[in-house]
């Protein structure tokens, strides 16, 4: 059995590596003017939402804390990342109406002394910084709200996300946040290119996918640790968990802060993928969408959340696009297939999942479980 576990983790490690290699290869061959570039868009956005969904699942699925504040933490992450990676040459154009207060750009600062390695390091630091900022606010918000029960917690976190959004749009904070105007020109995926010798290597999709992969691995490790087991105990029965000696307040706080941290990281990724950051985009609707991805994949399954978000993004950005533009599966009906039909079909699918397939795609299982089950079935057959 032990050996089997080891084998599974080795196989998954190799699979992840192969996937990353594939993404890297696709990055080199598919250019933005290519028709297949939609695939890259889906990979980029999908990894952003996958991390967001997995981090939300940590809270809602594993710990049983129904929180709806995700968009707020992503906003903090996006802004932190953006503000600390705007190069000094572009800062005055970006802060068009204000006198920029924060004048540090990590990638620029480090590249002065370390070259392109410094740029990479600077981006990494900014991403971690984004996560830390979100985690810090998560901690502060967690202090009052984690005492609340189910739906009260949901509505309070939703409220906090709205408050965060308003604060970031406040004119008086303009020198830091650029008021309600958008931030741009910071380090974004289109700039992730490296010249090695004569060949130009592109990392536009590889970087977000890599960040998401690493973060999700960390979350999986956490879920499988003693902490993770404590989270699940809290979810299943708070009173029983407390009776068994689990410190409720501490574990809820850990889950909430870690979830906020990765929400912040995914916010930073969202900024680099979209190449802009603006508070007005991080509405409650974004949280709802992420929640629906989690539901689609199965509440309480990490691989489910990943699959759910990639499906969600691919369907809404790519596969179902024809529903909006008059032609779908070869059927032409511009009267019905017009703007917005895609989202209608999509929300109907989601309602069907919510009502009739309550477990989502994966239920509470993981991909590795499927693998094991298959093995078991094979063994039994033999």
């Amino acid at each position, binding site marked *: 059995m032990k050996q089997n576990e080891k084998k599974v983790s080795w196989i998954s490690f190799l699979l992840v590596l192969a996937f990353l290699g594939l993404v890297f290869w696709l990055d080199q061959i598919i250019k933005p003017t290519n028709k297949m570039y939609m695939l890259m868009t889906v990979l980029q956005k999908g990894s952003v939402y996958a991390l967001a969904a997995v981090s939300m699942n940590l809270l809602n699925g594993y710990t049983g804390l129904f929180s709806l504040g995700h968009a707020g933490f992503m906003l903090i992450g996006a802004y932190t990342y953006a503000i600390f990676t705007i190069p000094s040459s572009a800062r005055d154009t970006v802060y068009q109406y204000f006198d920029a207060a924060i004048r540090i750009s990590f990638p620029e600062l480090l590249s002065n002394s370390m070259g392109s390695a410094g740029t990479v390091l600077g981006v990494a630091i900014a991403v971690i910084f984004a996560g830390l900022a979100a985690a810090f606010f998560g901690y502060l918000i967690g202090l009052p709200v984690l005492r609340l029960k*189910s*739906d009260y917690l949901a*509505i309070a976190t939703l409220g906090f996300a709205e408050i965060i959004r*308003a604060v970031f749009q406040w*004119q008086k904070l303009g020198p830091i946040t650029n008021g309600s105007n958008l931030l741009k020109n910071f380090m974004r995926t289109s700039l992730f290119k490296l010249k090695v010798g004569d060949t130009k290597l592109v990392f536009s999709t590889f970087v977000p996918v890599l960040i998401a992969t690493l973060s999700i691995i960390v979350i999986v490790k956490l879920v499988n640790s003693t902490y993770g087991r404590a989270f699940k105990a809290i979810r299943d029965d708070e009173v029983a968990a407390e009776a068994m000696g689990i410190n409720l307040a501490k574990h809820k706080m850990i889950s909430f802060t870690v979830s906020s941290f990765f929400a912040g990281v995914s916010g930073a990724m969202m900024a680099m993928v979209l190449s802009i950051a603006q508070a007005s985009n991080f509405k409650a*609707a974004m949280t709802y969408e992420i929640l*629906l991805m989690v539901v689609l994949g199965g509440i309480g399954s990490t691989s489910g959340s990943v699959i759910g978000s990639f499906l969600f993004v691919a369907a809404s950005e790519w596969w179902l696009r024809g529903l909006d533009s008059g032609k779908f599966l070869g059927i032409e009906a511009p009267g019905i297939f017009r703007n917005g039909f895609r989202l*209608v079909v999509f929300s109907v699918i989601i309602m069907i999942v*919510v009502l009739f397939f*309550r477990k989502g795609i994966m239920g509470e299982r993981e991909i590795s479980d499927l693998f094991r089950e298959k093995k078991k079935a094979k063994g039994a057959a033999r």
Partner: protein
Amino acid sequence: MGKTILPYIISGISVGGQYALIAIGYTMVYGILRLINFAHGDVFMVAGLMMVYMAAAMPLYIAIPLMIVLTVLLGFLIERVAYRPLRTAPRMSVMISAIGVSYLIQNLALYITGGLNKNYPSIPWISDRVHVLGLETSRVTIITPFLTLLLVVLLVLLINHTKIGMAMRAVSLNFETSQLMGIRINNVISATFIIGTFLAAVGSMLFFTNYPGVVPTSGAMPGLKAFVAAVFGGIGSIPGAVIGAFIIGVAESLIKGLDTILIVNGTITEQIGFATFSDAFTFVLLIIVLVFKPTGLFGEKTTDKV
């Protein structure tokens, strides 16, 4: 000073009355099902949208009652289709279903309107300009609070003096026991949804006459604010929801005008930008209440059972 503040108070009371009509739907449903009906605000928006389309096709004296009937039907159907099958499921599933319904309704509205702003038809008489207390305003602003109070009184009478009202009170006290006592729980829940959506339909008429633009997201913010009002007043309590709604309406209106009030007053000389927080302030109120008095102003004490 009084002359400066008065317009904000009047407009706040009017908005508060409209929130109150939505908030009752939230508070009644929560009282019985312990469910935050996230789709309630969107039903309110649909009522507005239906009025837009029907007023273009038929005279108002047919359109208005028909709009109310159809809205009530929609509320009834949502409960039947999206909430009833999940009656035994965990509370989180039902709430997710509510969010899903809200997502579906908004997307459907987006599809039908093409994402464009629809202008609410002006209903004669109530949208006329009137001169009150030295102010120019529309008649609907003045009427709203009175109409709201009238409806609330009727509702309270209904709950306290009819059979269905008694059943509602019983169900909200204890779901299982009342079932054992022979109350048809599904009928009671349907009745609750019908009353809630009826009030939301009336509220939408007042709201959109006052602010005549209907977009798919029109219901989201008023819905959330009305829910906050219900929590503020103590969820499950109808007078609480109404008072909470009036407080939130007036506070929101004052926040929007706070810069001006303080400048005219001489307290500050430069704009601070409080108007940015007009929506967020509602949530600040909510969190303060939740942290310090989770049962709200009029809510009853409840203890969680193991």
